[in-house]
């Protein structure tokens, strides 16, 4: 489990173009920071810091935290700003990529990651702003929920976070890319097979030619 999370995070890092501005969500997305050169990327956290880096235990400043309220460090060239200014950056389209977790992803490319039906809806944080505003969305998540049910479903049964499509999905089984109308399975993770993906996915998707030709079906 820990290992698959690291694998997903590492794969997400490969998606990033050098010199891009990236916001990392809570959970697996946070681990992406371990796989990127912080001279090549600039990390943003919505509570008001551009230029997030890791921090050693003995250098922790309790007043420097990320959106998950975890201690972080200040990169060279960093800047601080208010919440309103921070979300102006996000909403205004100035963040190149947001890497986020998801509870569900559906055939329309929509994400649900803020509320569970039947449970009280009492927290949304910056999820909706990031999904709306970031130029590109990468979803990192385990392929199935803790109860074994598919997370990639035909239509979200959990409340959606945005109508906006997430361009890239990276799970412990596979990588999917949005192709204008639907997702395409473009890569298998680790030693997973197309059968593994099919058995655990109820969302519609196509399979890219390369995988079909490699006879991975």
């Amino acid at each position, binding site marked *: 489990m820990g290992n698959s999370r690291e694998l997903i995070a590492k794969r997400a890092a490969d998606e990033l173009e050098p010199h891009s501005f990236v916001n990392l969500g809570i959970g697996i997305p946070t681990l992406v920071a371990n796989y990127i050169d912080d001279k090549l990327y600039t990390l943003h956290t919505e509570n008001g*810091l551009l230029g997030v880096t890791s921090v050693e235990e003995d250098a922790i400043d*309790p007043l420097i935290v990320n959106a998950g309220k975890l201690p972080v460090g200040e990169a060279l060239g960093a800047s601080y*700003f208010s*919440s309103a200014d921070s979300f102006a950056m996000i*909403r205004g389209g100035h963040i190149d990529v947001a890497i986020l977790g998801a509870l569900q992803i559906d055939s329309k490319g929509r994400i649900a990651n803020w509320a569970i039906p039947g449970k009280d809806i009492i*927290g*949304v944080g910056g999820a*909706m*702003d990031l999904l709306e505003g970031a130029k590109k969305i990468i979803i990192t998540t385990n392929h199935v929920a803790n109860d074994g049910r598919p997370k990639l479903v035909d239509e979200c049964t959990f409340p959606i976070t945005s109508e906006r499509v997430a361009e890239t999905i990276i799970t412990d089984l596979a990588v999917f890319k949005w192709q204008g109308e639907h997702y395409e399975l473009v890569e298998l993770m680790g030693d997973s097979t197309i059968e593994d993906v099919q058995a655990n996915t109820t969302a519609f998707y196509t399979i890219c030619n390369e995988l079909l030709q490699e006879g991975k079906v």
Partner: protein
Amino acid sequence: MHLDIQLSIDEALKHVKSDQTLMVGGFGLVGSPLSIIEHLTKHDVSGLTVISNNVGEAGEGLGILLRQGKLKKAIGSYFTSNRDVAKYYNEGKLELELLPQGTLSEAIRAGGAGIGGFYTKTAVGTNLAKGKETKEINGETYLLQEALKADVAIIKAWKADRLGNLVYYKTARNFNPNMATAAAYVIAEVDEIVDVGELSPDEIATPHLYVDAIVKSELTLTKDGVKNIG
């Protein structure tokens, strides 16, 4: 001479009355006016509406006011971290208004800037859009969010000069400068009060016309939790 607006916390808190709307700065406990909140738990007020990203933690910060039954309503973006909030909400003891964090911070800025409302794409098509007006602008759908204002804002800054000019410290800034603009009476808790002229005019984040009272911190957030420095 210029006014020296330093007050004791209890003097400043005389401006907080029952049934008012209160803005409270901070992201969790970071940048939260911990000392003012602590004093507020001892004031006899009730029916408060708080506008704050969170309602503190269970039994900490604003969470104490909740347990004391002083809160009527909370407007914020993330109440999940205080388990009491769901409990009080389900028991009908607390009203909630949940806003995306960017919409919340922008609505506070709008309140301070004389903007009646604004159009955002955030939350369009979601459950949080229910009951809100939409509008097409240049072919895209936006949601109307009205401004938020308060009777009193209690905020946390790093340094103040004696006029009330403020600078903030790192990610302890968060909602504080916006809330400083959006309330009729603004109380800023600060770690340090310096002479007028010591803060550089190009660096001041909150000009003193926004601030009505400055009070000295008695509590501070450390690696090992909240500590008394009074």
